[in-house]
């Protein structure tokens, strides 16, 4: 099946109108010696056969493990209305809203999404979306370099290690001086940051809650960062903002995050959503598309892509970013999710996550040999220290039907016995108790 409507008769007629004898003649600019050396693909199949094949592959995945793994990518409930509305073909089969008159739906939805991101983070402006949380953080770093004209970035060790690796990849060819600030499983180490903060520093990158789940108030750090003439970049977890002090309130300059938790499935890593918000004074240095409200010639409210002079299709090599396609449909899902969740809903959801995680902490702490780290308050993720290498314990827990968390030794060499555990609103009390029972059995039986 090729989804091609042409009949043989139509093809003949069209070729005649074009004035050629065959389809081959239309390809005459491709010299015959350019023929593919091979094009060895399977022949087409019906959708029913392809479905069976893919269903078999889907069934090979243990997607039904009871999930206590987070690390920036969370297993939240997604109300049916999100997919029902984002699944409308008028949204998903359209493209970038270059022509405002026939794209008001997309434009207004993005404007509403930008508004919601600003409200969540307490920032002044947000863009239309970036690829994911990691690339958004990289874009924020680049933006800080552009704004300050400096070339040194301090990055807290509590920033998601996956994001940190992304930053290093992109900046290999640029002369940027990165300093990684060591951190244990608690809050940011102030003295270490201040030691490296100087007049060459463009930005300090922080995360709240950090990778270990620790909650912090970075206001004091940010004050010092500003005194040094640098910018503060905060990477945040949007659901936690139902409860935690906002980056805007801490006076951050650029805020980014992974929007997956706003109505997107885990889906083996994508499609996700990077968001980026900042202060109005930096808007012209911001990467990505931006929707603005204006009026049409009749005076009606209208929405358009604006400040396009920053973008690659106008500015080419001088653009603020190379981004073209972003994650528009994911941004749409996020605004639908936030709308249906609502003002009180976000507060309650955050509280639910917090309460369940605290319950899990207390439950796990009762197991002999398990130490729950309590040096800082946490949101819905926390670290526990186990009596031996957590990697093997994880394997045993997987065998028992749990996705038990991340062995921290993977990213922090001196934390081999540590496990990062996440509890969202999807986990029931019974599941948490069973998790603890199984962990105890794995440790001591």
């Amino acid at each position, binding site marked *: 099946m090729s989804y091609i409507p042409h009949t043989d008769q*139509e093809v003949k007629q069209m070729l005649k109108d074009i004035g050629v004898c065959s389809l081959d003649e239309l390809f005459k600019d491709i010299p015959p010696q350019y023929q593919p050396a091979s094009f060895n693909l399977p022949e087409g199949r019906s959708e029913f056969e392809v479905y069976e094949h893919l269903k078999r592959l889907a069934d090979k995945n243990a997607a039904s493990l009871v999930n206590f793994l987070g690390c920036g990518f969370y297993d939240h409930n997604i109300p049916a209305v999100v997919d029902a509305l984002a699944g409308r073909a008028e949204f998903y089969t359209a493209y970038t809203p270059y022509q405002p008159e026939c794209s008001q739906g997309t434009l207004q939805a993005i*404007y509403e999404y930008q508004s919601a991101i600003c409200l969540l983070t307490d920032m002044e402006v947000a863009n239309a979306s970036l690829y994911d949380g990691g690339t958004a953080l990289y874009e924020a770093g680049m933006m800080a370099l552009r704004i300050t004209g400096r070339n040194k970035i301090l990055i807290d060790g509590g920033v998601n290690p996956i994001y940190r690796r992304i930053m290093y*990849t992109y900046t290999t060819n640029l002369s940027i001086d990165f300093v990684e600030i060591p951190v244990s499983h608690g809050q940011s180490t102030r003295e270490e940051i201040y030691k490296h903060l100087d007049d060459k520093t463009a930005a300090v990158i922080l995360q709240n809650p950090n990778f270990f789940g620790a909650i912090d108030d970075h206001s004091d750090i940010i004050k010092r960062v500003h005194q040094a003439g640098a910018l503060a970049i905060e990477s945040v977890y949007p659901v936690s903002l139902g409860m935690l002090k906002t980056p805007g309130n801490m006076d951050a300059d650029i805020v980014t995050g992974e929007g997956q938790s706003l109505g997107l499935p885990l889906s083996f890593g994508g499609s996700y959503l990077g968001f980026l918000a900042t202060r109005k004074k930096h808007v012209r240095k911001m990467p990505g598309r931006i929707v603005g409200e204006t009026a049409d010639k009749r005076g009606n409210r209208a929405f358009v892509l604006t400040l396009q002079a920053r973008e690659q299709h106008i500015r080419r090599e001088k653009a603020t970013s190379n981004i073209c396609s972003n*994650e528009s449909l994911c941004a749409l899902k996020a605004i639908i999710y936030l709308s249906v969740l609502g003002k009180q809903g976000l507060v309650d959801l955050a509280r639910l996550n917090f309460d369940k995680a605290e319950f899990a902490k207390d439950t796990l702490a009762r197991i002999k040999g398990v130490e729950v780290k309590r040096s800082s308050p946490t949101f819905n993720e926390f670290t526990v220290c186990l009596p031996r290498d957590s990697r093997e314990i994880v394997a045993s827990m997987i065998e028992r039907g749990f996705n038990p968390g991340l062995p921290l030794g993977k990213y922090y060499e001196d934390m081999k016995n540590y496990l990062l555990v996440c509890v969202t609103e999807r986990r029931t009390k019974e599941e948490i108790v069973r998790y603890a029972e199984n962990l105890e059995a794995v440790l001591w039986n």
Partner: protein
Amino acid sequence: MELIFEESVRGRKGLRLPKCDVPQAKDISGRYKREKPAQLPEVSELDVVRHFTRLSRMNFSVDTHFYPLGSCTMKYNPKFTENIAKLTGFSQLHPLLPQLLLGGMLTQGALEVLYNVERLLVEITGMTEVTTEPLAGAHGELTGMMLIAAYHRDKGSRKKYVIVPDSSHGTNPASAAIAGYQTISIPTDKNGVMDFKEYKNKLNSEVAGLMLTCPNTVGIFNSQIKEICSLAHRNDALVYYDGANLNAILGKVRPGDIGFDIVHLNLHKTFATPHGSGGPGSGPVGVRKDLTQFLPVPKVIKRPDGTYALEENRQKSIGRIASFYGNFDVLLKTYAYILLLGKTGLIEVSEKAVLNANYIAVKLKKYYDLAYDRICMHECVFSATRQLANGVHALDIAKALIDRGFHPPTIYFPLIVKEAMMIEPTESESKHSLDRFIAAMRGIAELSQNNPEVVKSAPLNTAVSRPDETKAARELNLRWIA
């Protein structure tokens, strides 16, 4: 139309959360807490449904309108592939699971999908290996530029420049610049391809690479492409294939066979995954054999025992370019699409896409000036210069098309064509649908001659008409404020 925030009624709720089944925990200190809740809407589920359904109806889309947006390949997106991405065995899978001990064996199905997609794309492009990680076309370009840099660094050199033709997409020079290169622009000759002499002159030992779209953005396949590539190779410059226009050449020619070193593909174009109002896209990158060592990690491999695993340590890898393995749901849809169409179906795609573009070119050239009057590939570019004599711009024609129920072509791109209108019909459209579009374009051409003011006042049938873009940029209003 009202914003969702303006529909808010204090105390209204749209969702019921699970009841808390654990004791309420002791609160954290006030200094860590949010002062006031975010002013999110307070609306019912039906409010949300009505609001976004109404919004959706203000859009043109492939499912509702012919959408010949040049260079974007707005083909039909099969409904079936949407179902595949929703299979819970995929949609509920945590991406870190295969990175845990034992976890790899529990994600064999997902890893096999990644591996199979890669192998299919390898065969389609003629490259040796592909990474599925890049999350959009421009992201693939940036990955490609970093691979070029890694290649030269490995040889102990740095090199300064990347060559791009002046007909290229804006993302090309932007991606090169972000990777740390300066760009050299080469003009287009009178036949619509990169000026070969100029290219030869500009090529020097400091050139790291060359980025080409092939067929290019005026829809022309450069017959000299092999010479262009070998000349670059003689200078130890790598040649990058921008796959935006791959829809023209499936099974006809493979970038890997004619000298390209690095290729990116836009799965949301050629392989029919939906454009989503501007993403998610997917931009896998393929490379020739000696560049595979630089590909980003983690990389899916097939072990001798037939199982799949993630390779995380490639000594010379450029590193991590995204959080995980790519836009996995898009990759799933691509996989299903390629399996559905198969070899014959994919070849037919290109043949019919090229047929449709040439049909439009021939039928409309009496009314509009073709930028290059010759057989084209998957798209044709007109210039509205004839209409400009009466004061009608490409923009006016675009707006008049909206009134007639067609999404406009890409306008004012490529930059080298004055008043450009770039039309890419794709293979999905029937002769009947093309004829209707041609008739509309013809009508607009006639109106431009006889009554240009009417064209310039379009559109009349839309919710809004000609929003004031200057006002939007001057009086920035980028968010709702309570």
